[in-house]
């Protein structure tokens, strides 16, 4: 666990909207180590997907600006040419998308789509590639891999498709896999299966996983470390235990509190007022969460707040957490 696979420093990703760039990911820094699941959580629109795509440099480069450092095994991906990047994509870093139906080419058999990865990154013969593909399908728990090999995405159920996505991502044994909300579109029972699958694969390959989700309960099940994002910024980083046992940032705490628990029946749930600001009209000068906790006086927040280390590996943005209490309780 000494050397991180991926080390992100001050990554800022800006989108061009009406001739101006607005950062959707704002000075994000974190690292991912081998055999580790780092979860990124936050409400919709917090910049989680933007972050994931930035790492892979999959944004439309005409309308996006990526600044900062994305150090993958010591090399900075930001400076890579497209060609170099193509050597990283799929081979070194795999990605799993949220909507497995649209993310697969409807006109290609499942097998071909997985094999494609191998074609471009390995020198395996056609026969070998096929064997490897079937092996992959078996690995992700597809019951009839040889049959599925020749099937088309629409012939598979949602869970199966997501498994295919996973096998595409891990085809070349990448050292890092980014999973962008891999279970959101799935049923509870299947969600569990997929998560366990990811974990078991990780056990075999020791790869690092960045798991993006908005569901804290998923995080609790699988993650080692958690990054809580809000409005493009990291507001809290810590290990699972730290975050669940001792959540500090008001946002983290609110999120946890608003989960309808299975125990406390029919009690009122906590509500976070307001909503995530859009990247265009957002006040970037002050604590971005402050508008949603109006009962905390302004001076309890820092001016352009920073991350503070409150415990080893546990960082929190802004000092307002010290003043935070739940309204009405």
């Amino acid at each position: 666990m000494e050397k991180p696979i991926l080390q992100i420093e001050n990554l800022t990703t800006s989108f061009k909207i009406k001739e101006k760039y607005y950062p959707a990911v704002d000075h994000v820094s974190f690292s991912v180590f081998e055999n580790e699941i780092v979860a990124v959580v936050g409400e919709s629109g917090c910049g989680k997907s933007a972050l994931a795509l930035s790492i892979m440099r999959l944004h439309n480069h005409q309308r996006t600006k990526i600044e900062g450092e994305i150090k993958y095994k010591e090399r900075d991906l930001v400076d890579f040419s497209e060609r170099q990047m193509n050597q990283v994509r799929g081979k070194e870093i795999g990605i799993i998308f949220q909507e497995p139906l649209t993310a697969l080419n409807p006109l290609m058999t499942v097998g071909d789509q997985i094999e494609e990865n191998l074609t471009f990154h390995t020198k395996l013969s056609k026969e070998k590639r096929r064997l490897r593909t079937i092996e992959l399908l078996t690995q992700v728990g597809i019951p009839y891999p040889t049959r599925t090999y020749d099937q088309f995405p629409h012939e598979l159920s949602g869970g199966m498709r997501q498994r295919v996505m996973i096998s595409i991502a891990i085809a070349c044994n990448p050292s890092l896999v980014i999973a962008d909300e891999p279970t959101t579109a799935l049923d509870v029972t299947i969600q569990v299966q997929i998560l366990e699958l990811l974990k078991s694969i990780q056990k075999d390959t020791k790869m690092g996983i960045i798991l993006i989700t908005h569901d804290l309960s998923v995080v609790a099940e699988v993650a080692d470390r958690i990054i809580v994002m809000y409005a493009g910024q990291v507001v809290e980083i810590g290990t699972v235990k730290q975050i669940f046992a001792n959540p500090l940032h008001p946002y983290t705490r609110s999120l946890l509190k608003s989960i309808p628990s299975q125990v406390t029946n029919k009690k009122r749930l906590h509500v976070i007022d307001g909503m995530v600001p859009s990247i265009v009209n957002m006040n970037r000068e002050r604590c971005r969460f402050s508008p949603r906790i109006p009962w905390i006086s302004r001076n309890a927040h820092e001016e352009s707040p920073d991350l503070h280390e409150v415990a080893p590996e546990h960082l929190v943005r802004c000092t307002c957490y010290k003043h935070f209490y739940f309204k009405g309780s």
Partner: protein
Amino acid sequence: MWKFILRRFLVMIPQLFLLSVIVFALAKQMPGDALTGVSMDPRISPERLYELREKAGLNDPWYEQYRRWISGIAQGDFGKSYTHKIPVSEVIAERIWNTVFLALITLILTYLLAIPMGIASGRFNDTWIDKVVTGYNYLGFATPIFIFALIMLFVFGFSLGWFPTGGSVDSKVDAGTFAYYLSKLHHVILPALSTALIATVGTVQYLRNEIIDNKYKDYARTARSKGIPETQIYTRHIFRNSLLPIAAFLGYEITGLVGGTVIIETIFSYPGVGQLFVSSIGLRDFSVVTAIVMMLGFATLLGTLLSDIILSVVDPRIRIE
């Protein structure tokens, strides 16, 4: 699949029946009949005319004529052409292959033009190449096809003399020889190219939109995430998916072209079905007119079926059981 085709054929029967009723009614509505022209000759006595009409069955009540006509068609007999005096099927047979050939070459040229243009302007949209293609599209859309064809005929047919200006083949060469086919091709190129240059516009536009559509689709992003170079992403994923709806239009396209040859055949004096149709309308040769309309109606239905079959073959999402 076979069941599907069978069902489609069964569905065609009432459609064709309805078409036949409409066509027949319209033909009967047309002023004059095939003997009007003959009846202009003062040397022919009214009795003789009556005799001729009787012989042609033109004096029967309409339902009787219809019955005779439709039962003939059911047996593949479209009746006899009044002007050509031979079975309609023979009259049409003399020309249909010319038309099919013209349509085919037009189709090929259309796609030969459309696919590179569509792909280039779709892939590099908003670059100069896209602008050029789009500009061409706008112009092509706004140009009346026959003006364009006439100008082509004048420039390349008459002024430069590169292409023949009428007919479907050089009468001096013998049928079946290589020179014969070459001559056929030589005759067909100019009309086909003139049509294709204009007709391609729709396909180019469609293809362009499809490609722009597809290149931002999620599956293209997945492909990029596999580290496939951009060019390969186009060849392996985007082109295929974008060409699919166009392939599916093939059936419609063919029938559309066959129907649309009326103008181009007239301009280039190309002896095909379209020209036959126009002259038959003028000559009140109903049996030919109705047969052509029926035939093309049937062809359109077949084309639709073909399109559906193609679509089901190329698009795994649509499976006809």
